């Protein structure tokens, strides 16, 4: 059997049928890039020990378009996203699984690029992809490639982070600027196209999390504001904990080009997706310490205290505007759309 044509070849139905062709795809593309002791065994499952602690598991599906963007691609996003979901429990992520649904006709060159990117992200994070699966669907039935990643990790004893733990008086911290990822994706859409010094902020945050929970184990909860942005994520937390929130607009880090893009598209940066930021809620007494620890870490240099948790039966998230006036930060239903009015 001749080698896969990774330059000009494309995915075919036969690559998903469990026979030699699929074996070749795994061998020459997936396993070659993602190489580690578990994948090298070529079993349908991976066996491993976990360090002591409570086990945490999270899963994420990735259907993003476009597949490639400044700052990342669907592959690195898939790795970072699931590592972060696990890390938001205060956990150390240990292993990843990755499932691929490929569309017939998808270029192998693109697939190789995506898988190599995943491999690099996994290596950099120290979290290997130990098992996976591939299926192929007919042309027209998939958007190029869909990736699902599942992650497993452990939480050390003594940590109880959860979205229902926020209490009135707690401080709300944010690890860095908002809107970078969502605006990057939008900038690639035709017509909306603009050039700017922006890129996706996609990154694995478990290193930052480890530093944070070690210094302040009393953290109530962590969450990363992905789809739906800061505004929606805070509303989720407010609802879960049965509290209200008061934010300070002035304190929220926002890069200039992101702000400009939101202005001319009529978007509120509070609702634009982020892929490399986290929200932390902690008791007020620990807030300054937590902030200092975050700022010492490369992923938290722009961290800021952005608000406080308050008692509020209505569970409203409100914000003191740059003016000193007050506005609601509502829980949006669907995604924000650019507007002309």
């Amino acid at each position: 059997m001749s080698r896969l044509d990774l330059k000009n070849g494309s995915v075919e139905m036969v690559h998903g049928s469990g026979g030699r062709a699929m074996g070749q795809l795994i061998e020459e593309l997936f396993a070659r890039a993602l190489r580690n002791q578990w994948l090298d065994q070529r079993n349908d499952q991976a066996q491993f020990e976990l360090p002591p602690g409570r086990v945490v598991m999270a899963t994420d599906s990735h259907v993003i378009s476009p597949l490639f963007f400044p700052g990342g691609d669907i592959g690195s996003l898939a790795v970072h996203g699931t590592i972060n979901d696990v890390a938001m429990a205060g956990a150390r992520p240990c292993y990843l699984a990755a499932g691929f649904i490929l569309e017939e006709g998808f270029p192998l060159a693109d697939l190789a690029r995506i898988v190599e990117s995943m491999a690099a992200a996994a290596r950099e994070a120290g979290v290997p992809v130990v098992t996976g699966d591939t299926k192929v669907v007919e042309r027209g039935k998939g958007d190029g490639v869909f990736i699902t990643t599942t992650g497993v990790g452990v939480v050390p004893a003594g940590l109880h982070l959860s979205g229902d733990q926020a209490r009135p008086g707690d401080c709300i911290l944010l690890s860095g600027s908002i809107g970078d990822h969502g605006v990057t994706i939008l900038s690639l859409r035709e017509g909306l196209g603009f050039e700017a010094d922006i890129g996706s902020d996609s990154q694995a945050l478990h290193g930052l999390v480890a530093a944070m929970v070690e210094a302040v184990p009393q953290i109530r909860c962590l969450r990363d504001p992905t789809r739906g942005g800061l505004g929606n994520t805070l509303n989720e937390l407010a609802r879960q904990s049965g509290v209200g929130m008061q934010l300070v607009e002035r304190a929220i880090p926002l890069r200039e080009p992101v702000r400009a893009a939101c202005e001319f598209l009529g978007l509120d940066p509070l609702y634009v997706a982020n892929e490399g930021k986290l929200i932390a809620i902690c008791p007020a007494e620990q807030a300054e310490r937590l902030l200092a620890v975050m700022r010492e870490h490369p992923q938290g240099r722009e961290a800021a205290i952005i608000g406080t948790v308050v008692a509020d039966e209505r569970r409203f998230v409100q914000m003191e505007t740059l003016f000193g006036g007050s506005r609601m930060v509502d829980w949006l239903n669907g995604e924000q759309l650019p507007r002309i009015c």
Partner: protein
Amino acid sequence: MCLAIPVRIEELLDEQSAVACIGGLRKTINVALLDDLKVGDYVILHVGFALQKLDETEAQRTLALLAELGQLAEAEQGEAP
């Protein structure tokens, strides 16, 4: 209605198009509705079209007036807000 924003003309491409800049962001826009544009002019941008030039002298005048009104208010209150 009419979400529009002032942008700076960075480069004139031809009679119809120009490159505009705001907050570090560059975009190609349609300038067919305006005449005599120069690099450095500010225009109001709406749905990808420049609709009107911004008069910078007037802008400064308005800002000065706002500041003056503000100072009056401060003076009346007898202390800075």
